[in-house]
């Protein structure tokens, strides 16, 4: 079982990922998620909260980042550090990035939405379209003629 609770006295929330793994999370961390907050308000508090759209490995990442984000609130260094971690993840594993982004969106965690979006935005900055396609495995589905036309029509932006 993946326990992510600390030895503090705060309330523990139990959650179950789509693949059946059970997580014990401090209430303060769990409530970062507006989805969980709503579910708790709707009286699921005493039971295990199911998260049918999130797998265990991704949920684990989400919790890690929620905690890091809580820490970084008062620390500019950490903020920078956390912001710079996206580059690595996107280079090595864009697939996991997408799953994380979707999970964060599903769980409705505002702070992580902005962080993960910032990651990709930073990643796109200053890279040529060709390099972006290659790194993110984006298939260029334009024919050479189409691409030439798009470039021609968008000269105002690409010159």
């Amino acid at each position, binding site marked *: 079982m*993946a326990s992510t609770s600390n030895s503090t006295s705060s309330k523990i929330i139990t959650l179950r990922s789509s*693949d059946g793994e059970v997580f014990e999370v401090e209430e303060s961390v769990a409530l970062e998620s507006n989805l969980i907050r709503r579910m708790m308000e709707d009286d699921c508090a005493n039971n295990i909260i199911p998260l049918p759209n999130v*797998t*265990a*490995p*991704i949920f*684990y*990442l989400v919790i890690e980042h929620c905690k890091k984000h809580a820490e970084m*609130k*008062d*620390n*500019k*260094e950490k903020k920078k550090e956390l912001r710079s971690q996206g580059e690595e993840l996107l280079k090595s*594993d*864009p*697939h*996991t*990035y*997408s*799953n994380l*982004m*979707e999970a964060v*969106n599903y769980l409705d965690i505002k702070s992580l*939405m*902005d962080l993960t*979006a*910032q990651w*990709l*935005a*930073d990643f*796109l*900055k200053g890279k040529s*379209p060709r390099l*972006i*396609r290659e790194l*993110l*495995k*984006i*298939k*260029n*589905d*334009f024919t050479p003629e189409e*691409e030439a036309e*798009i*470039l021609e029509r*968008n000269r*105002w*932006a*690409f*010159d």
Partner: protein
Amino acid sequence: MASTSSSSNEQPIDRISSLPDALLLHILSFLDMSQAVQTGILSSRWMGLWTAIPSLDFDQYQYKNYKGYNPFVEHFEAYTGFFDYDDFTRSNEFDDSHDFGFGFRHGFGHVDVDDGDAGGNADDFIKFVEHSLVLHVAPKINRFSLTFDYSKKFEPFLDGWILSAVRRDVKELYLEFPVCIDHICKLPSWLFKCKSLVSLSLHKCPIGVPKSVCFSSLLSLTITWIRMEVGSIPALLAGSPLLEELVLDKCELSSGRLRILPSSPSSELRLKHLTVTCCSNQSGDEIGLELRAPNLEMLNLCGVKLYKNSLRNLISLREAYLDIYCTKVNPKFHPTLESWLKDLQHVRLLALSSSCLKVLSFMEELYRPSYDSKTKCLILESELESLELRGIANLLWRSHDLENLIIKLSPSLFFTPDLRPDNDFDNGYWGRLKFSFPCVERRLTTVKISGFMGRKFTSAVGRKTLRRFFMTQDKEIELVRFFLTKAVVLKKMTIQFCDKPDFVEEEEWSKILLLVSQKLTSIPRASSSAELSLLYK
């Protein structure tokens, strides 16, 4: 624990492009427009996506390789991070966006440039913004941001650009003209009737506030480097009934007196956060402040002249950041500062700059004002100069309820006449104090010292004497010793070392850090549960 990458090793699948539109648009809204538009050629999925971005950021400095001349960039780079009071930002109690004033005065920010094209790409940039706005189709705009060096060329376009945002119910508007020739441009007066605006941020753009303003949704207003005519601020306050946050930084007020007062005696300002830093009157002197804001929670002042009763009746105030110009470091100013502190006795968080500490140093350590301070958290910015030590002691002595203390050590940036040279007075100062501080004995639970050992890098130090130099910087170690040996209920002491100075070799630096750390950890502690944590960068 399963591996974090669950599939996709066999075949490259582009999952990012299959994220829903809303997510991709959220991502694109973090990009400058020139970057966002360029994602359009990645694939058919991305083509045209940018035309629905809800937040638009046009920035000439990000556009192509614009090399505009920004005379102030250096200054800001030099001073950012100097006053970041982010250490105790627990929950949302204190936001880290409060910048304390810089404590220096600046010339005004208008630079004469030829009407031509400072960076050489104004035409391209104009074309780019025009094209983007024509193609952009999102029905609503959340945030609209324009940054460019204003010249006559922009005159026919500016109104149209702002209008395109206002028509689409823009919530946040940010305008900055890093370089602007004064008097040639003025924002359209209809902007001041924009009902959708929640946040407005204006930097270095001459504004010309009309007599009647109607910002019926505005919560936050930031104005920097702008000349404000008489009547501008009252008009803005009267026209923004919901305003909660006002920031005025480095503005020039032609009246020389800033009145933050309700528009009629029967009404009351909602203002919660007020920052007035480094503003001046037309002759460059500090401005006066009249303030009546019973809902104010956070106040940040630098270089402001207060009138009698200025700070009275701030019944909701919880945090106050005070800085004064170094020209006020004078015994004559002490009664004034004391009266401010008296008015601020109820705030929970009090932050004082080095120059304030110097003024407090003119009194004895045991000087007791006629009130009881309720402050629980003190933030002090100090160079640990002779003139400041007694000020720190003085504050500790009067702050009976103090629980958290943050001392930010900073290298001396400005010339301040240090009446006593670095001498015996400093060395052993804390050890020589023969009385005990009530808060240190009973309340103080956390102490944080940042910028440790970074204090005097500006002074010329030869490489050879380096280690000796650091080892004899006992003032800082002695400060730590004082708290560790005296604070009985201390739970945590955090020491954050400064960055490695450029002129010190890596290897030498680690040796120095090791030696200093050993010294620190060997200090006996009065509190058995005191934890000492040393942070290196």
